[in-house]
């Protein structure tokens, strides 16, 4: 089962022929992902590393019946590529690009309303269903198939959590990086809902950050709707107020979005909290035993 992506996923890469696009598309293909095409305007009709290239997403979808797109387009043009995918009716869009202007994402968010597309990211590591399909930049070998769902706003911190699980021989259903930007396509609640419905997923790790209310909204949703155990870590307890910690989203602006406040609400809503990112694996092992 898993969520979002599996063996039937047919992937195209937008921005295939760039250095990063090529490297990570090949890594994904090596992992077992069915890469059916790529898009680079002006290079349509050519073959790149054995992958057919098209000028537009629309054309690529028509020719390949792709049902997922991975975007590796530089930040000034990335929002345009996302909108191109939405226009073409691409069901799943995963945007890896970091540094898209917020104003562009506000427009993308509006374009997503009422569309057929789901956007994951931007500024995210992507999505992986271990053993079946990898779309993104995460190191495939640290994952293993299993029953824990992982959702995170951070890339490397997700790898950290996954690695701890795999070390303990605990596999993952699907790992989803929703991205560290203030405006993104998919929030924690959307993914939690999918994990709740997925019969294979037995427990979920949710990794959040300071800034915004996404984690506290998720906490309240979990309390009302979720029967599966959730373990959560919030990064940024040691961050000084008002400083942007790398991710554009990670800035404490009001009282309610500090790590302390988020930990408190998560705990009140029945979520198992890990105060240290090194405890995530152990905490999941605990809740799975119950």
């Amino acid at each position, binding site marked *: 089962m898993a969520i979002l992506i599996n063996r039937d996923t047919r992937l195209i890469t937008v921005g295939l022929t760039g250095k990063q696009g090529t490297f990570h598309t090949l890594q994904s293909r090596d992992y077992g992902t069915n890469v059916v095409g790529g898009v680079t305007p002006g290079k349509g009709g050519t073959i790149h590393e054995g992958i057919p290239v098209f000028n537009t997403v629309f054309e690529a979808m028509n020719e390949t019946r792709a049902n997922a797109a991975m975007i590796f387009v530089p930040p000034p043009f990335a929002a345009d590529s996302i909108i191109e995918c939405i226009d073409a009716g691409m069901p799943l869009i995963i945007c890896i690009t970091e540094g898209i202007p917020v104003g562009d994402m506000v427009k993308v968010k509006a374009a997503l309303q009422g569309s057929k597309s789901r956007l994951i990211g931007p500024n995210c590591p992507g999505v992986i269903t271990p053993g079946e399909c990898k779309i993104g*930049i995460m*190191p495939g070998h640290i994952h293993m198939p299993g029953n824990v769902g992982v959702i995170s706003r951070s890339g490397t911190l997700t790898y*950290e959590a996954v690695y701890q699980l795999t070390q303990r021989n605990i596999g993952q259903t699907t790992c989803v990086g929703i991205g560290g930007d203030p405006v993104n396509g998919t929030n924690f609640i959307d993914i939690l809902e999918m994990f709740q419905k997925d019969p294979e997923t037995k427990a979920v790790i949710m990794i959040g950050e300071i800034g*915004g209310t996404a984690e506290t909204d998720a906490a309240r949703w979990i309390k009302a709707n979720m029967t599966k155990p959730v373990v959560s870590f919030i990064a940024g*307890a040691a961050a*000084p107020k008002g400083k942007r910690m790398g991710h*554009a989203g990670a800035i404490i602006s009001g009282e309610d979005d500090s790590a302390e406040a988020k930990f408190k609400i998560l705990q009140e809503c029945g979520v198992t909290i890990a105060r240290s*990112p090194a405890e995530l694996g152990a905490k999941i092992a605990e809740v799975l035993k119950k």
Partner: protein
Amino acid sequence: MNVHEYQAKDLMRKYDIAVLQGGVADTPAQAVEVAKKLGGSVWVVKAQIHAGGRGKGGGVKLARSIEEVEKYAKEILGMQLITHQTGPEGKKVLKILVEQGCAIDHEYYAGIVLDRSVGKFCMMVSTEGGMEIETVAHENPEKIIKAYIDPATGFTPAHGRKLGFALGLKGETLKKANKFFEGLYRLYVEKDCSIAEINPLVTTKDGDVLALDAKLNFDDNALFRHPDIEALRDITEESEQELEAGKYGLSYISLDGNIGCLVNGAGLAMGTLDILKLHGGSPANFLDVGGGATKETVQKAFTIILQDKNVKAILVNIFGGIMKCDIIANGVVDAAKELGINVPLVVRLEGTNVALGKKILAESGLKITAADDLADAAAKAVAAAKGGK
């Protein structure tokens, strides 16, 4: 990116947003010249630094004669202005803004921010002008009136009426307020602002609506399409190390502890600071080398970390995804050799090409403490900093 009040007001004039006439000066003589040119009998002399709370710190003075303009200009220029946003060391005032006075009838608040929960820009107004908006939001949330703006429609007169009537405005003043709000939204979107805050927004005895103060921040990710905004950057207001780091694609923030940190990824970098604190340590910095780091950027990262004389140990924590462990390992080895790192170095590598990375470190002949996992790395770094030379 932040700009000064006088720069924000210059931009606002271009969008037909009403502000007072004024001019910037960096000497008392210039201030007098500006005041004479403006005419009138009352002027305001305002320190130009990138921080709020300037009035309370003594950086804003009302002058009732040209002599007073000169006197206050002399006092404020060169002073070390301390406000709740500058930190205890304060900021040196290098420029002042001299403005016409005006007869204030009422003070309000107006601002635009992104509401992340809905992914839309939100214009907020309040009758509680001159107060910190965070305080109002906390104590009297009902006194903040919001209008969410759909990017497809932009700001419409209906948004303006909603906000204007809520402030109790009417007639010509309401129309002027609507024009003010519309202009502010247009500026915000066209120039990719991240914050616009007019506090206070005032109505005058003559029925005008204008910005008494103005704060604009800009989205760093959008500066590539606004060279005019980039040109307003005042490097005297920014941390030298943070600027230097930015040139190499590193994200660096100085903190007050003694353990230097070099991490890949913002989330893991934050998590590393957290776990150091949980182990009783104190991080000296946040540093995210990013995914595209090379040997050179790793070396630069070490140089920046070592400029902080409080650093007693360095923790390198890398989980290679895009970033390959061998590149980091080579960077660490080269930096250690060339820079002569003389504080304990704890390195934890995991992920892509980890075996190769560990081999490079082991064969380097350098004194590097290898750590097995995140908790082990934190414990070793804290111990090293405590026993530090």
